């Protein structure tokens, strides 16, 4: 009797495992079988009317067909920067909340608590990565001494591989990121997918600073970003060492641990907010990937761009930061 009961339980577990929902590295984004039907959904081998053998249209419009605010093909609304369902991997208690902010922010709106008041609200983004194939300057791209950066057109598939198998052997990467972003010259071998997946920020109130990321991802993401933003990759001590670049001479650490600075100089132990001061650092410590609604005041809003331009200023100078003005500095350094 007990054996039969165990068999039934095992069968139920198997059924439950099979009935997984479509998320970033499966559904239309991977796990293709040898006789998959999925290709014909978007591509034509000989009669395509769009780039990349797409049946028709542009890739970013295709992405928005599911990941736009209508949410009629996916739960991740990247335009509003929200996950339309509760993220059951992030929520406790299990019933959780819906519409929690995506870790990357949004491209049109972001649901963040950039003012650090304990209450998230939806607001128009003030800065974002480009996504519609328009061109901008990739600040810090290129070798030392190569100017502020080169121009590049960006779209969703510049960074994401819609087929989801970028990790090799058809394995998924974190957020189906490409190993090498289109247009860059690098190549970061491991951006492991997270398990379990967690699309949204940890804090229900919308505080984006101090988010918990997978350690391996956190270590690798700075190198991944630096495939385009080469000269922003700065190890411990870069704040005290001249890189030789006339623009990006002294740079805040963007990968590793800040403790190394203090060890190297033999100074007192690091001060600052004990909640963060020993955390490893990465681009994602201070910046979101898609877009932020952070606002900038007098000083922060008038910082010249790396090419010396002072326009656009104000909120447009928010540089994907997670907190208004220079909150990301103060929250760590606690000056």
């Amino acid at each position, binding site marked *: 009797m007990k054996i039969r009961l165990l068999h039934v339980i095992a069968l139920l577990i198997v059924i439950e495992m099979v009935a997984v929902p479509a998320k970033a590295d499966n559904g239309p984004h991977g796990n293709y079988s040898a006789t998959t039907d999925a290709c014909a959904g978007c591509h034509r081998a000989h009669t395509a009317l769009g780039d990349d053998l797409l049946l028709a249209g542009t890739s970013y419009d295709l992405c928005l067909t599911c990941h736009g605010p209508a949410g009629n093909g996916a739960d991740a609304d990247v335009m509003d920067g929200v996950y339309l369902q509760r993220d059951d991997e992030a929520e406790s208690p299990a019933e959780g909340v819906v519409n929690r902010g995506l870790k990357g922010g949004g491209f049109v*709106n972001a649901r963040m608590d950039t003012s650090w008041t304990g209450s998230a609200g939806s607001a128009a983004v003030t800065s974002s990565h480009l996504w519609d194939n328009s061109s901008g300057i990739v600040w810090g791209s290129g070798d030392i001494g190569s100017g502020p950066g080169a121009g590049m057109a960006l779209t969703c598939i510049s960074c994401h591989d819609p087929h989801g198998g970028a990790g090799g052997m058809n394995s998924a990467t974190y957020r189906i990121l490409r190993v090498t972003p289109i247009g860059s010259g690098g190549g970061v071998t491991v951006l492991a997918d997270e398990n379990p997946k967690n699309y949204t920020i940890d804090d229900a109130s919308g505080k984006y600073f101090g988010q918990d990321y997978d350690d391996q991802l956190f270590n690798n993401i700075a190198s991944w970003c630096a495939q385009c933003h080469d000269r922003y990759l700065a190890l411990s001590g870069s704040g005290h060492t001249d890189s030789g670049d006339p623009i990006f001479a002294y740079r805040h650490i963007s990968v590793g641990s800040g403790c190394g600075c203090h060890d190297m100089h033999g100074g007192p132990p690091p001060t600052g907010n004990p909640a963060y001061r020993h955390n490893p650092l990465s681009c994602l410590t201070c910046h979101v990937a898609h877009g932020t609604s952070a606002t900038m005041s007098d000083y922060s809003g008038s910082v010249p761009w790396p090419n010396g331009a002072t326009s656009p200023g104000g909120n447009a100078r928010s540089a994907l930061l997670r907190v208004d003005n220079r909150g990301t500095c103060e929250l760590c350094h606690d000056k």
Partner: protein
Amino acid sequence: MSLTTQSTPPPDLNSAEKRRRRLLLMVLAGLSALLLFVLFLFARYLNQPEPLPELLPVPVEVNYPPHYLLSIYDVDGPIGVAVSPEGDRIYVTEMRGERLIKIFDKEGVFLDSFSPPRTTQGERSPVYIATDSRGRVYVTDRLQHAIFVYDRDGNYLDTILSPTLTLSEYVAKHTKTAPTPGSFSYDIFEEEVDCKDAEGGDLTLPRPDYALWAPLGIRFDSHDRMLLTDVTEDAHSVRVVPSDVVMSPDWLDFDLSAMQFGASGQGDGQFLFPNSAVDDAQGRVIVTDGNNGRLSVWDDQGAFLFHFGSGSGDGALSLPRGEAIDGRDRLHVVDAVGQNIKVYDFSGPEPAFLFAFGSMGVRDAQFNYPNDIALDDSGRLYVTDRENNRIQVWSY
């Protein structure tokens, strides 16, 4: 001698000649009337070009594709479209910009716009839209996880918060009186419900506690039944709501749970983002199973029958979204990635592909990620052409 005058006697017409002349007169009158009618139609067409089925309301039995008529602009990322029961108004939801619901007349003249009460642009995401036989307008909202209901002019009436709760019902339970439609408001990002107490004074209630769902596609059939798709995570399904629930005088004892079928997945009887459901004359419910790239057909008791339209070849679907069925059981399906409308004959036991119309592009009669379609009784078709920011009007 008497003088007598004799007038010329009238010609002696025989009865056959009389009949001939009468007939000729009648034919002449008929031809004159026909000529006048043709002149009237000609003048009307010159003044306001309309398709023949509208000028001559006779059934057209030939299966040929419709032709492009005109486009309605002044919309930003249109997603959903519906027509009023009288056919005189077109309602459109927007995905971009202010994300409003806009009303146009039949010729595309903008009339008005509206949106859920208290919401800002970033707090609403209207998607699909439908009208019932009373002219009420229903709009599903992905961010709000609710269905907002308005009168034909866009005045807010009520919100369907969950399959078993309306906002009016929630307010009535607290105030012990049936509230006036639209005298209350709530949005999911707020902690409070604003309403009126029994004496008409302002009252604030705590946010209602209910199980969240994700209504998406909405249609009404000719029997006033609501056909609704639900994309609640891990529980994608379809609901068929009887007319007595929808058409009850008030929604103070609301329950949409009469018939629900389907589950999340890729197998038989499963959906991945069902976008719309309609029923045919045989009572079968036909669901656009969006991310599975197929149509899913169910019987009138909610039992799965078969899939249709996946794969490649004529009539194969890539990403089916909105759909509408006409009086001849011709199902019109918007293929968002295929960039066209595919039409199937559902009048027999087996559906058959008839034709497709539209192609990818920015010119007249070309689509750039279309999403939804609505039909009216005069043979017009309205299609949301999302990335071209317009509603295309076609006609049989």
